[in-house]
Every structure is written in structure tokens, then in C-alpha cells.
């Protein structure tokens, strides 16, 4: 095993996720704005927001404890480690060091757990409300995410994410029908995890609708920048999983500059298409009531269990 290549892969993938993830937040906003006949923010708006926040000072509530201070760091650290698990440009050599799908899910859950704690920590009513809503939704969606990823593991006969992508790349089938079922489920998971419209509304700070925004309401300055960056990274990583199992074309296995450049272009193109689809999906439906959400989750559960049935019994 070539450790040098592995480290190079890690740095490349991490930097790629870190630098390109805010782009898709703005892109989805632009698509939504155009759907409402508005112009929307410029493409690089999220970057300038992040830079502005990084320059500002951080203010802590006098009621808050160390959790408030540690949460942004835990979030960004968990997401940086998680970004090693999803190869977006180059698939690394087969190794046990990176890519376990269960650890990937636990890292995302760790970030979410600390975010909910920090919502409670400042003692504001909004934060507590956001945390309780987030945890109520998590209690519903986490088992479904487990089933979805279990179906994914069954379909590719591995629990290693790079191996899954390698399998998707190597398959002779145009699109494996089972993968379509899982992809619809993962699409729903992306919508839920990145706090998008039928579940949460990322645009407003309206008391009735906000979940994710309520939890980070007490964060400010650099900490807020870290929180927003980590949620952008989470969205890009889940989008990367969906893209690379459904349309892995362009993803490369050899560590050379030309193939990486091709892979870069292909991935950005595919991610832009997916972001447009997400934006259109968000514009096409209204925020649904909290009690209606299990219906959305049930479709994801149904499709992934059908996948399991097909994979286990066929």
C-alpha cells in the first residue's frame, strides 16, 4: 500500500470538498430564485458570507458553557474526517483505513448531536425548540438512513464507500435498476439532512418553520462560519454519494493530473445538474407539517426495503 498516495488523496479530497461545497448552496438559492422570477444572489455569495463571518468577532451568551465553544470545532472536524470517506475525484487504492460507511454515518450523527446540544446550551427558547424538532426528526430519519445505506451495502456487497464507487464504475450495466430505488431514497435523505423545503425552510427565520436555523441562531462570527461551512460540506458529501453510485462516469482510479482534471469537470457538471434538480424539487413543493413528514420518510423506507428484498431473495 502506498501511504504517500493515500495522504495525497486525503488532502485533495478534503480541500476539494472544503472549497467547492459553498458553491452549491448559492446555486440552489439561485435556482429557487429563478423559479420565483427573482434574480437571486450571485454565485459566490456564500463564499463572501463566510469570509465576512470569519472576520467578525465571536459573541457568547453569558449562560452558555463549553459546549457552545466546542460545537463548531466538533462539527467541522467531523465533517472534515467524513470528507475523507467519500471520494469525489479519485478512488484511492483498496484499503481498510478509510471509507467505512457506518463510521461515516456516525460522524454525521456526531456533528448533529453536538449541534442539537449547542442549541439547548444557550438557554434561548428558539434554540431549544430547534433542537427538540431536529431530534424528533432525527429519531424518525436515522433508522431509515441506516436501512438505506444497508440496502446500498447489500447492492454492492461491501460496506466500504470507495469500494462501492469502484463497483459502480466497474458494472457493465447502464444503470442498475436497484440503484434507481436507492437513489430516490438517498435523494430524500439529502433533502432531510440538508434541511430543505418539505422538511425545513433554509431561507427564513420564521418561528414556525425553522429547525436547523434555530439551532445555530446563537452562534456568531467565526463559529457561525464554521457551522455553515460544515452544513454545506455535509450536503456536498451526500450529493457525492448519490452522484457517484448513479452516474460514476468520469471518476478516475489513477492518480494523474489529466484524469483528475477530467474527473473534476465531470463531477462539477453532475453536481450542478443535481443541485438544479434539488432547487426545482424545493420550488415545486410546500413546507409540509411536521406530522406529514413520516409520509416522505416512509417512501424512502419502502424503496430501500424493496431493494433489500430484491437483493436478498433474488
Amino acid at each position, binding site marked *: 500500500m502506498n501511504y504517500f498516495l493515500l495522504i495525497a488523496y486525503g488532502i485533495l479530497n478534503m480541500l476539494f470538498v472544503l472549497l467547492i461545497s459553498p458553491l452549491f448552496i448559492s446555486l440552489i438559492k439561485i435556482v429557487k430564485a429563478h423559479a420565483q422570477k427573482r434574480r437571486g444572489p450571485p454565485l459566490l455569495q456564500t463564499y463572501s458570507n463566510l469570509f465576512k463571518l470569519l472576520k467578525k468577532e465571536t459573541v457568547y451568551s453569558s449562560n452558555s458553557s463549553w459546549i457552545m465553544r466546542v460545537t463548531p470545532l466538533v462539527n467541522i472536524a467531523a465533517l472534515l474526517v467524513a470528507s475523507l470517506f467519500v471520494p469525489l475525484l479519485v478512488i484511492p487504492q483498496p484499503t481498510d483505513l478509510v471509507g467505512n460507511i457506518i463510521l461515516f454515518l456516525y460522524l454525521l450523527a456526531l456533528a448533529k448531536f453536538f449541534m442539537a446540544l449547542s442549541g439547548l446550551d444557550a438557554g434561548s427558547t428558539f434554540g431549544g425548540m430547534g433542537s427538540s424538532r431536529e431530534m424528533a426528526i432525527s429519531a424518525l430519519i436515522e433508522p431509515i438512513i441506516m436501512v438505506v445505506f444497508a440496502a446500498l451495502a447489500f447492492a454492492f456487497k461491501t460496506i466500504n464507500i470507495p469500494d462501492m464507487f469502484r463497483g459502480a464504475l466497474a458494472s*457493465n450495466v447502464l444503470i442498475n*435498476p436497484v440503484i*434507481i430505488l436507492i437513489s430516490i431514497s438517498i435523494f430524500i435523505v439529502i433533502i432531510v439532512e440538508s434541511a430543505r423545503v418539505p422538511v425545513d425552510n433554509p431561507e427564513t427565520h420564521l418561528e414556525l418553520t425553522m429547525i436547523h436555523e434555530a439551532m445555530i441562531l446563537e452562534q456568531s462570527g467565526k463559529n457561525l462560519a464554521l457551522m455553515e461551512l460544515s452544513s454545506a460540506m455535509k450536503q456536498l458529501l451526500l450529493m457525492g454519494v448519490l452522484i457517484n453510485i448513479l452516474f460514476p462516469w468520469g471518476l478516475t482510479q489513477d492518480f494523474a493530473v489529466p484524469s483528475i482534471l477530467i474527473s473534476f469537470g465531470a463531477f462539477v457538471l453532475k453536481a450542478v445538474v443535481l443541485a438544479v434538480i434539488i432547487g426545482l424539487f424545493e420550488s415545486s413543493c410546500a413546507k409540509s407539517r411536521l406530522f406529514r413528514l413520516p409520509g416522505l420518510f*416512509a417512501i424512502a423506507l419502502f424503496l430501500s426495503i*424493496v431493494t433489500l*428484498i*430484491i437483493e436478498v431473495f433474488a
Partner: protein
Amino acid sequence: MIIAPLENFAEILIVLVLTTAAIIIMKRDIRSLIKTYALQSLLLAGMALLFFVETGIITLLFLAIIILVSKVWVIPHFMGLVQKKLNIKRDIQFHFLSPITALLASIVIILFVYLSFSNLLPELNRFNSSLFFLGATVGMSIVFMGMIVIFTRKQTLTNIVGYLTMENGVVLFSLFLTELPLLVEFLIVIDLIMLTLIATILAFGIDSTIEEFHTRLNPFASPPKDAPQKNSEDDKQ
């Protein structure tokens, strides 16, 4: 595993048909129910066309055309008209099972159908290909899922969609398992159009649900506890 592209397309279509059936179970908006049904029929027509390309049997081409004309265009169009006249937008009342439990029940049904078909596997030579097995299973499951729609929903229009979904399941099943002569298929479709006509005319007569019809039949009877008149107001909002 190398699969010919045509077979792969057929599998993708089967999977999408199953997804539309799941959406039909979950949806409450009647217009999108009708649209989903039209989409499901379009997928079936695509599948018949695909089989025609693969096998060259002319019957399948006619079947695709019949499905395209009757189920993608005529029936949804007619149901859309009825929906506009009845002015019911949503079906939010359920018997026995809520949509989520109905969806979970259909998971059990699919498992059941899968297991019972795999027991039949040695008996039928057609099952050699995994494609035919998948198609037959999904077809049979959709028949049962349509049945669930019929007995869990209150609105007559939704019941009709459930009936039509069952029929689509039969077509899918027959595409994969048995080769029905075109005449029988054609008669089924004519039967279906007549049934839809009769059922929708009946739907005009009985407003939106059978319960409301019952209260209109007995004007002097005391209104039932859950005041159906009020519920229909809720529907229109």
C-alpha cells in the same frame, strides 16, 4: 453480470412502475394521483414497446398503442374533467389504514408475493430469467397495492384510481408471464373505459363519498357523528 441494454431498460421501467404505485398509495392530491396514474401507464406502454422491439411480435405494438391512447390520454383526461366538476382537490380521509401503514403493508405484500413466486420457480420455465421474475412479482404486487388503495380511501375518484392501478398490475403481470391474445387485452381496455365511465357518472350522483350519498338518501335520518357535510367543506379548502 452482463445484461443486454434492452433488458436493463425493462428492469428500470419495472422499478419505476413500482415507485409510481408507492406514490399513488401516499398521495392525497387527486390531480397528482391522476397524473401519477398516467405516468404509470406511460411506463407500461414504454415497456410493451420495448418488448416489441426485442421480440418483433406485432401484438405488443398494438398493446402499446392501446395503452397510450386509452390509459395515458382518454381515461386521465376524463377523470380530470370529473375532478374539476366535482371540485374535490384532496382525499384526506382513510378507512382502516393510513397511507404510511398502507405502504408498510405493501412491503409485506411484496415480500409475500416474492416468496410465493420463488416457490413456483421450478414449475415455470419462463422464470429462468431474473427479469421475468421481477416483472411478474412487481405486477402481482401492484394488483394488491391497487386493492389497498381501493379499500383504504374514501373518495370515489381515488377508488377509481386504485382500480385502474390494479388493472395496470394485471397488464404488467400478463406482459411478463402469460401472452394474452390482443383481443382479450382489447376487451379488458374497453371494459375498463366503460367501468371508468360508469363509475365516474356514479361519482357525480354520489358526490364524493359513499357516506354522503347515504345521508342524502335518508334526509330525515339523524346526521352521523362525524358530520360528513363539514368534512367535505374541509376538503374544498
